């Protein structure tokens, strides 16, 4: 006997799953309306496609096309098509309805939302804006000058800062009647002054339509590069070379061409100049080359180690921007740590028109002594091009402890091969002095002494020479001494008259010596006259005359005393002193 109970249960479960699945399937239906062109010339035809996509399209009604302003519907030119594909392991069916129109009147319009019933549920497409252009506005001359096919380098920005990402698109433009079957890049394109990274490109380039100088062109982005300027200034991207294989519809009129009218064309883009600006100065922080949207963190592994074991200081910088150009911030490691060359590890992704990823620097340090080591905090700067300013962050300080390994053999001075014992005990201390010769004061004193000695000796030599060679100078110099000597003699004289004679001699001799006059034969009157010439109207002249007269007439004087002589000697000394000043 066959048991049927379990089969019913299985069928029940299957139906339940199918119903549930159906409910799920109904939810993944998408409806999308697209217009083949959004810029259309008056009289041009375009197509409106309404695509319904879903894993199961059990009930699908043909959409009703509403009136579209600016366009006239062509009822005989409607199309339908279907496409079956697998997406993420699930089957997907796309049913497309195509409707053709002719543009009628220049202006800005929009395709209104279109309603469509799918699996007994109503869906609505989004409105599409479009523009109908007047063909009279086309500059025929310009249109003819534009080549049928050409390639351009199109940067996303033209004024980046050093290190900022610049996306360069390699874009192919070709006229509608040209078919491009394939293309090949010519290697050797240089972007001098930039770090170049090729971004992930789609396997097949999709073309869009655009109007250039009144002519409809197809625009296909073939390749995309991320460039990072490494220096400031005007940097020029060299022309990009491309080899394309094309078929030109206009030239394919010959009946004998058999569809083989294909040709290879070498295309070259125009050079593109990009003006790269300098970065501003980072304030009290280290700029390590990061330009973009980055985060930086620093960690240690392990946090404690034995002496002699390696410790890793890991610096991880992640985000989007100039990942390949990032440098490691400089850290101040304690001197007693042994440092090894840091390791670098870079991961880069090239999706979504940007370079992103992370760069990890690993400093390897080894503590050679036990103790606690501190790597001080570090302030770093990352330039954010979106904000045109630096983002600052501080990496916290890292402290780790190094202990002696209890199982390791304790090393000591004796174990080292350096066979030198430290010097202990009393040391002979000196102070550090390093001054230049010119800054030593003693040098200047030493130089000054012989200089002064030389000047003094030279002066004395001159005086000495003059004394020996110039009799007038010698007499003048010795006049006072000689006069005083004669006066002393007069003071000692026993005869008063003899005394006065010596006084006269002393005064006369002093004046003749001083004035370099002959020693004998000069009268008292002449002497008085000479003195008067030197000091006209002076009382000295009368005093001199008085003394000389007295000395000459003393023989006739009635009462002459010794005391009177002594008085006159004193007067004579005083006179000589005063005469010395004027002669």
């Amino acid at each position, binding site marked *: 006997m066959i048991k049927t109970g379990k089969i019913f249960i299985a069928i029940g479960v299957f139906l339940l799953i199918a119903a549930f699945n159906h409910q799920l399937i109904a939810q993944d239906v998408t409806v999308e309306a697209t217009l083949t062109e959004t810029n259309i010339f008056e009289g041009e035809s375009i197509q409106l496609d309404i695509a319904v996509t879903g894993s199961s399209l059990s009930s699908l009604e043909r959409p009703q096309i509403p009136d579209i302003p600016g366009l006239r519907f062509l009822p005989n030119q409607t199309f339908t098509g279907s496409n079956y594909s697998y997406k993420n392991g699930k089957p997907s069916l796309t049913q497309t309805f195509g409707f053709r129109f002719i543009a009628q009147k220049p202006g800005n319009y929009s395709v209104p939302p279109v309603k469509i019933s799918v699996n007994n549920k109503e869906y609505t497409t989004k409105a599409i804006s479009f523009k109908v252009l007047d063909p009279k506005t086309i500059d025929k001359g310009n249109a003819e000058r534009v080549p049928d096919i050409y390639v351009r380098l199109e940067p996303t920005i033209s004024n980046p800062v050093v290190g900022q990402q610049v996306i360069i698109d390699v874009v192919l433009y070709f006229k509608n009647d040209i078919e491009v079957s394939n293309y090949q890049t010519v290697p050797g394109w240089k972007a001098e002054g930039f770090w170049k990274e090729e971004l992930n490109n789609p396997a097949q380039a999709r073309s869009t339509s655009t109007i250039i100088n009144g002519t409809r062109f197809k625009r296909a982005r073939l390749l995309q590069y991320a460039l990072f300027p490494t220096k400031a200034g005007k940097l020029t991207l060299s022309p990009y070379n491309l080899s394309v294989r094309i078929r030109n519809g206009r030239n394919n009129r010959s009946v004998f061409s058999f569809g083989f009218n294909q040709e290879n064309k070498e295309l070259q883009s125009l050079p593109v100049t990009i003006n790269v600006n300098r970065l501003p100065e980072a304030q009290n922080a280290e700029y390590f080359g990061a330009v973009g949207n980055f985060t930086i963190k620093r960690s240690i592994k392990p946090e404690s180690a034995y002496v002699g074991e390696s410790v890793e200081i890991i610096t991880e910088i992640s985000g989007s921007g100039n990942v390949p150009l990032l440098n490691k911030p400089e850290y101040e490691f304690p001197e007693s740590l042994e440092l090894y060359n840091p390791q670098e590890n870079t991961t880069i992704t090239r999706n979504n028109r940007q370079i992103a990823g992370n760069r990890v620097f690993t400093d390897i340090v080894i503590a050679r002594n036990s103790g606690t080591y501190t790597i001080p905090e570090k302030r770093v700067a990352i330039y954010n091009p979106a904000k045109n300013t630096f983002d600052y962050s501080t990496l916290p300080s890292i402290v780790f402890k190094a202990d002696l390994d209890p199982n390791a053999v304790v090393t000591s001075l004796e174990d080292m091969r350096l066979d030198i014992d430290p010097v202990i005990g009393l040391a002979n201390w000196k102070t550090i002095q390093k001054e230049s010769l010119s800054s030593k004061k003693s040098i200047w004193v030493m130089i000054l002494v012989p200089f002064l*000695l030389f000047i003094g000796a030279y002066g004395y030599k001159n005086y000495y020479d003059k004394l020996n060679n110039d009799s007038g100078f010698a007499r003048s110099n010795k006049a006072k001494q000689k006069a005083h000597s004669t006066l002393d003699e007069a003071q000692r004289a026993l005869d008063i008259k003899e005394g006065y004679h010596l006084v006269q001699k002393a005064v006369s001799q002093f004046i003749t010596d001083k004035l370099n006059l002959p020693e004998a034969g000069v009268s008292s009157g002449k002497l008085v006259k000479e003195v008067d010439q030197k000091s006209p109207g002076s009382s000295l002249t009368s005093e001199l005359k008085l003394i000389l007269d007295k000395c000459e007439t003393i023989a006739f004087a009635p009462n002459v005393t010794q005391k009177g002589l002594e008085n006159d000697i004193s007067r004579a000394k005083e006179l000589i002193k005063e005469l010395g000043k004027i002669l």
Partner: protein
Amino acid sequence: MRFLVLAITFLWIGEIVHAQTSPQIKFDEANVLLEEGSYQQSMELYRRIEQQGAMSGPLFLNMGIAAVQMDSMGLGKYYFKKAANFETVQQRAHIALDFVNSQFSRQSAMLPKLPWDRAVDMLKVTPGTFGLFVTGYLFLCLALLFLIFKWFNIVNIPKHTNSTIACFTLSVLIISLAYYVDYVDRRYDEAVLIDEEVVVSENPQENATLISMAYEGYEVTIDHKISSGNNNWFYIRLGNGQYGWIKSKGIKIL
């Protein structure tokens, strides 16, 4: 009496303060730490003595030993080279230098110095710039004496004029030499690299063209005249005769 007691107390306190800050006290403490194997602490104490401006052969020798124990061979070489300038520890410093030099994995090629440079180096040490100047000065004084003797006929010197000119010329030459040696001494300095690896570049800039690499223990000559105006950079001559710029960090001037 009260004044006397006060003065003695002041003198006594002054003596204690002096004893506490004396380099010898710190040196003894550091030596104890060195012998106990506390190299880092001993080095810190030695450094404090150095910062006070005191120096001695044993201090630099012990600093070199502490640096070697901390596995910093470049620093050890620097201190041993300083110690080698002191006669008391010269022999030991040279033995230590031989050891340290044998530990470096990379050795710099050393071009021999020119005879003139060697002579200048020798004069820097003996008799020194001041000694040279004094020698020249003595000749200048002698020339002056000869001149005075002649002027005043005090002593009759045979070939007096020639002797005076010879003494004066010698004095000018020797004093000029003293100033030249002093100039060279101030412009150039010997230094030792203590960083493991240093880039020698063509210009004092981060991204300048690389000339060579220099490694720990390399001896270089710094030109202070050319280096002036470039903060954190030194213009150097490597032992192999190459010239270039290096960052001032990681270099110890002798």
